[in-house]
Every structure is written in C-alpha cells, then in structure tokens.
C-alpha cells in the first residue's frame, strides 16, 4: 500500500520549495558565514576598550553561527512561511518527510521521526566519541603522579568539556534515537506530534556541538562542567562559547520534550490507553517533563553568567554584591533533576528488554510508574546535596539529607521491578540482555555510594574527592551508558534490518564491564584516601590506584571501539533479522522493517498491554 502511495503521489517533483536546496553543507556554510559576519560587525561597532569586549565579540560570533546554521539547514523557513501565510502544501510535507530522497534525507531538515532518530544516533556517537577521546587524555595525564601529557590549562579545559560533552551526550543517548525512532510507533502514531519541531530539536543540537568543541579550541577554561562561579566569571573566552552551546542545547531539549509529551498524550492509537503504554513511553514522558522543569535553570544560569562577563552585571561577582552560592543553587536546581532526565529513558528501555528477554510480563507495571513519578517529584527537592560543604544554609542540611535519602526509595523500587521482571524468567541471553545484567551489577554500586554521599558527615569527608567522581561514573557509565548500549542492541534490527553482531558485542561488553569496575573501583579507593578531584597531578600516595584507573579506562575505550566496529560491520552486512527478531509484542515490532514512511498501513487497534508473555 505504501509503495502504491509512493508511485502515486507527485511529492518528489513539486514539494519542498526553498528547502530543496538546503542541507547540512549549506548549514555549515551559513553558520560560518554568519559567524564571521557577526564577528566582523562586533569588531567594527563595539567599543574595543570596554570591559567585556572580547566576551561580547565571542558571544555574538557564537550567535551568528547558530542563526546562520539554522538558516542554512532551513529551520527558519517554517516560521517565515507562517508569518507570510504561505503554509506548507501536502507536497511540501511529503518532501520534508524525506519521501523518495534516499540517503540525502539524512543530511536535511527532514521531519520523518525515523530519520531524526537515526540522525540522533550519529549525533550521540559524535558527542560520546569526542567526550571519550578527552577522557583518554585526562586519564593518560593521570597515569603517573607527575605526568604532563597535557599542560594544566589544557587539562582543565579537557575536564570541563569532557564533562559537558558526556552530559549532553547522555541526555540524548536514549531519548534522542529511540524516543524518536521507536516511540511514535510504540504508541501507534504515524509520526511525532510536531514533526518540524522534531527536526528543529535535532539541528539545534547539531548546531550546539561545534560551539562546545570550539570552546576548547579557544580555551582557558578552569571552571569544570559545573561552571562554578567565580571561576567561570574569570575563565577565558572559551567559556563564552561553552555557555552558548548550553543555551542552544536547552532550546533543543525543550522543543524535544514538548514533542515527546504531546506525542504520547495525543497521538495514541485506538485502544492504546495510558495503562497499556509500553513502559519506555512512560519513562520518556517523565524524563521529558522533568527536563522541561530542569533545563530552564540551565538557560538562566548560563545567561546570567554571560551577562556578568559581557556587560558587567554582578550576579555571581562577590565584589559587586553577587554570590557564587546563587550560581550553585541555580546550577543544581537543574543539575540534580537532570541526572534523572538522563537515567529514566535508559531504565525505561531496559525494562522493555528485561520483559522481552525473560519472556515475562513487566513485574508490577503500576508500581514502576509510581516509582518514576516519585523520582521526578523528589528530584526537584534534593539539589542542595551538592552543596553540603559549601556553607550555604547549614540549617537546611538535615532536610536535604532526608530528601536525598528518600529518593533512593523510588530508585530502589524501579530497580526491584527490574529484578522482579527477570526473577525466575526463562532468560534468553542475547546481547541486549547481557548489557542489562551489566547495568544491574553496576547500578547497585552507583546507587549505594550515592546514599553514602547523602549522609552529611560522610560527605564532609568525601566531597570534592575522587569518590564522588567514581560514584557518578558508576551511574553514568555503568548504568546509563550500559542502558543506552542495551537499547542500541535491542532496536538496531528495527533500524537496519540486521542484528548487531553478537560476538563482537559480547567482546565489547566484557571489555567495558571489566574496564568500568577496574577504573571506578580503583577511583573509589583514590577518593577514600583523600585524592581531590580535578587535579592534574597528585601525590605519590595515589600512584597505584590511578595507574589502575587509567588501565581500566583504556579497556573501556577498547570496548567502545569494538562496539563501534560491530556497529559499522553489522550495519553494512550483519545477519538479517526480519521484522521481529526478539518475538516482542510492542507495536514497533509489528511493522515491517524497514519501517514504511507512515509506519502503519492501517492504524492498529490495541486490546491489551504489550507484556502478555507467557499468557498466550
């Protein structure tokens, strides 16, 4: 049917308008041109003697890049057409959806959610890949006590940009590819609620990445990923691009979040009640909702910091009456909810996998939804556990300790639901499930060390040490990254029609799994012995554990390279998988592979939840 539609509709001959000539290359050209233009204008018209001049020039150049890039990709065509009342025709829509455009559509402002999902896979790989290279630089520098692989200034820049690349990468690692590619199909929709906004969220993300890398190139950033004031106020002009990148990114996630929520709430097919939603859909809307709450703080804290630097406001400048505590509050009001924005989609995907590969219904569906809701609610009330030792509001220490310890309850509930799902299941040990087991082992360590840190007397000892770094790497690498890889292995056949190579995948698993424990267990020890984080060289006392951590980090890198190899080889010539290789029951497995442009010939009618394994 869909193929008849293809030959019938004249879409590819008439639609598209100006967009026909725009693509990734014109976007790059537009970005560079506008960036240079903005730089030139700033140089010409701003007062070179004024304080904040170089920051003004840098920020304006960054703005020029973003605007030029979005113009060049065609993101601003829609608003322009709206303004002049020339709404898109059906042919335009079909062109935008990438109909009959072949590979070209992956390099354009394409609205088809499946194309956007694939674009997100590559954007995620770019973020995590560059972040990983920086991590290797950091660990190499820490190989031996006085090693100067890079100089201290560069080391500091590496640390900050590594952190932020990974944070951005993990925010999109599951939500980007899969809440786009899979989610609309899971709920029985033909596309996302707002397809053009979907393309917008992807391309604003792409526009943000070069800014972050550019910040490293122009350098001198000592503020770490937490952009601590007043260090951030004093950092070199690299920080201006760093902040611009984040501001651009917050636009991307906000747009994506609205889209995700609207898709699930308003695009469900007949019979797809909220109680029959796949758990990944629930996790996606919780994460998106939490992101809508969290990321505005990110936008504000970065904007205020830029204002301090550019125009002489004193929000975070103590000598002008401002305070670094304000920066920390705003940052962690975003920062803690954000870790759950990162965690939830990964957990949602792994719960799907756990059910499918245990051939058992999801254990206690409602409980896990309750757990996710509790997590979101509480995560807005724990931010000051990042500030226990700063001297801010000591009387609030107790309450924040309490809320932080409370949040481990819903976290634990979700964890138990996963165990309950697997419990006594008939486990089919395929690649996605292997990574889920890895997650189970790692998350225990990450979660429990979190509870240690929420205890103020312990945190007074541990804060600012490598112990904290090890804690959050257990949750980010050991848990979220494992979940993201599990999701990739699980849905890869839907995208490509091929399995991700099982053997290479397992080699990769063991390298990453062992590497994670080697790196971060040793790092716990460094931390407990008192090694401060963020230092580029350290005392002989920490010699052995750091050496071990660096070896572990190389193992992780090796494992990720094997995974990359598996990805490339399998995409090209992996074993064909057919439309439903895992015998799963959610809707994305009911449609053909490759998924037709509009997903369903006839929209399905749903009569049960997707977890009826073992029932019939």
């Amino acid at each position, binding site marked *: 049917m869909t193929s008849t539609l293809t030959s019938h509709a004249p879409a590819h001959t008439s639609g598209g308008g100006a967009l026909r000539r725009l693509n990734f290359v014109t976007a790059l050209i537009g970005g560079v041109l506008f960036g240079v233009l903005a730089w030139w204008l700033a140089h010409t018209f701003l007062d070179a003697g004024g*304080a904040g001049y170089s920051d003004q020039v840098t920020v304006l150049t960054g703005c020029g890049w973003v605007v030029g890039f979005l113009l060049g990709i065609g993101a601003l065509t829609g608003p322009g057409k709206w*303004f*002049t009342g020339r709404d898109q025709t059906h042919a335009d829509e079909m062109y935008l959806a990438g109909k009959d455009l072949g590979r070209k559509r992956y390099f354009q402002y394409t609205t088809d959610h499946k194309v956007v999902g694939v674009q997100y896979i590559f954007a995620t790989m770019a973020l995590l890949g560059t972040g990983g290279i920086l991590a290797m630089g950091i660990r190499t520098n820490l190989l031996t006590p006085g090693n100067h692989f890079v100089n201290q200034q560069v080391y500091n820049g590496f640390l900050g940009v590594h952190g932020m690349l990974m944070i951005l990468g993990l925010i999109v690692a599951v939500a980007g590819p899969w809440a786009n590619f899979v989610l609309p199909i899971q709920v029985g929709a033909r596309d996302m609620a707002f397809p053009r906004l979907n393309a917008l969220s992807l391309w604003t993300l792409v526009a943000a990445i070069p800014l972050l890398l550019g910040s490293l190139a122009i350098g001198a950033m000592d503020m770490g990923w937490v952009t601590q004031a007043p260090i951030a106020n004093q950092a070199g002009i690299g920080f201006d691009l760093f902040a611009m990148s984040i501001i651009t990114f917050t636009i991307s996630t906000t747009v994506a979040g609205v889209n995700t929520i609207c898709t699930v709430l308003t695009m469900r097919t007949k019979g797809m009640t909220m109680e029959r939603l796949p758990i990944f859909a629930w996790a996606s809307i919780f994460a998106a909702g939490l992101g809508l709450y969290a990321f*505005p703080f990110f936008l504000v*804290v970065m904007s205020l910091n830029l204002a301090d630097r550019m125009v002489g*406001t004193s929000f975070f400048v103590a000598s002008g009456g401002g*305070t670094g*505590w*304000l920066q920390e509050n705003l940052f962690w009001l975003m920062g803690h909810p954000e870790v759950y924005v990162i965690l939830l989609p990964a957990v949602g995907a792994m719960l799907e996998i756990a059910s499918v590969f245990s051939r058992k219904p999801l254990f206690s569906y409602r409980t896990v939804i309750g757990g996710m809701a509790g997590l979101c609610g509480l995560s807005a009330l724990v931010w000051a556990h990042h500030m226990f030792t700063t001297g801010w509001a000591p009387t609030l220490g107790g309450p924040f300790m309490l809320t932080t310890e409370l949040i481990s309850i819903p976290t634990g509930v979700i964890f138990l639901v996963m165990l309950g799902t697997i419990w006594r299941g008939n486990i089919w040990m395929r690649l996605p499930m292997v990574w889920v087991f890895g997650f189970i082992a790692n998350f225990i360590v990450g979660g429990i060390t979190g509870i240690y840190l929420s205890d103020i007397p312990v945190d007074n000892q541990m804060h600012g040490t490598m112990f904290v770094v090890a804690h959050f790497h257990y949750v980010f690498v050991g848990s979220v990254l494992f979940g993201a890889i599990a999701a990739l292995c699980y849905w890869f056949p839907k995208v490509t029609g091929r399995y991700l190579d099982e053997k290479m995948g397992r080699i990769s698993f063991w390298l990453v799994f062992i590497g994670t424990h080697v790196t971060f267990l040793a790092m716990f020890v460094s931390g407990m012995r008192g090694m401060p984080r963020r230092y580029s060289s350290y005392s002989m006392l920490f010699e052995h554990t750091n050496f071990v951590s660096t070896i572990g980090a190389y193992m992780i890198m090796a494992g990720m390279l094997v995974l990359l190899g598996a990805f490339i080889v399998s995409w090209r010539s992996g074993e064909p998988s057919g439309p439903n290789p895992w015998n799963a029951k959610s809707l994305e497995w009911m449609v053909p592979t490759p998924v037709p442009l509009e997903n369903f010939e006839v929209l399905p009618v749903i009569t049960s939840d997707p977890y009826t394994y073992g029932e019939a």
Partner: protein
Amino acid sequence: MSDLHVEVAAHHEAPEIVDHRQRLGIWLFIGGDVVTTGALIFTYLYLRAVNTNGSWMSVVGLPANGRSASTLQGILDDGGSMIKNIETPLSAGFAWLLVAVLVASVGLYWLGEVRLRSSASGRSAFIALSVLAGIGLIAYIVLSIVQLRQVPQYWRAENDSMLFIYSTYGSCMLALGVSAIIHAIILAFLSFGSATRAAVGVLSHEKWYQARLIRYFSVWVALASVVLTLVVTTLNVN
C-alpha cells in the same frame, strides 16, 4: 486505487484533534517559560535577601553615565578614592505604564480573536486589532529600552582593570528587562504574523482557534509582567 484516497484522507486528522495537540504543546512551552521566569524571580529574591554588605542597591565606584574609564583612572591617580553610591529604585510609575501597554496590546489581540470567532466578517476587525497589538508591543519594546537605560552603571577598579558594573539590583532589572523584551519581540512577531495570515486568508473565521493558541501565550506573558512588576516595585529597597 480508490482505497488509496481513503487512506490519504485518513492521514489528515480532524482539525479539533490537531488543535487539541497544539494547545497541549503551547501549555507545555508556557510551563517551561514559567520555570525560566521563576528562576529569574528566584535570582532577584535571593540577591535581595542576602544583600551582601548592604550591596543590593549600592555600589562602590564612580557613576558611569558618560564618564570614561580614564576619568576613574585620573581620580585614582590623584589619590582620590571611589565613592559609595546609593541607588534609588527605578520609577514604579514607569514600570506600571509598561505593564499597561503590554496588557492593552494583549487585550487588543484577544478582542480580535473574539471578533474572529464570532463571525466571518470579524476577520477584518481581527487584522486591524492584531496590527494594533503589534504596534503596542513595539511601543512596549521601545519603552522597555528607555527603562533599561535608567539602570545606573558604575566604573570601578578591580584587579588592575577598569570594570563597568551594575549593582545586584541593577543586574536583576537588566535581566528581567531583557527577558521582557525577548518575549515582546516574539509576541510582536506572532501578532503581525496573525495579521498577514488573516489578510491572505489562511487564518479565517473557521480557524479562529489558531489565534487562541497565540492568545494563551500572550496572556501568560502579560500575567508574568504583572507579577514581576509587583515583585520589583514592592520588594526592592534594602
């Protein structure tokens, strides 16, 4: 082939469904904007509450209006020291005037929406009222810039360089003002866009609810300006 058309038709959802979805979308965007505004209010109240060394509305430095950094350098070279300047809050009357202009513009747009909804002939009224709303918004932007120029700036010497700074009160007023201007620019774009769309006929009586989406956002912006003005005109002095 005939069933093909049935299928294509099925892909075009009923306008009510699309509208429902778009309304949810707008509400969610507004939700994000509420948090953004909340973060700015938090900043304002926080800095006013801590008032480090009485610095909320005062600054050690030289009032900058028109003076160059070298003036300050000259004073310092002559052995003079910097003065502590005590600010006064910006004019509350002017702030409320701004609110009035904004609320009036939003009201005009809303009135236009009501006319568009009530009859097919309401379209020309809608066009006129949206244009007026847009003009009101431009006036608001201009007045906001005038207001921002009242925020006092100071020169001060720090770490061997001459800095141009604002008190924390001034900083907050600047941030809130810029945020208001950005919102007004978006609203002006939407108002004039509504007018052109209605003029070429894509926004018509039958599709009045498209104007409602914009009105939701405008009403929120107007509401926010009332709340913010209440905060900054009452909770301002040390």
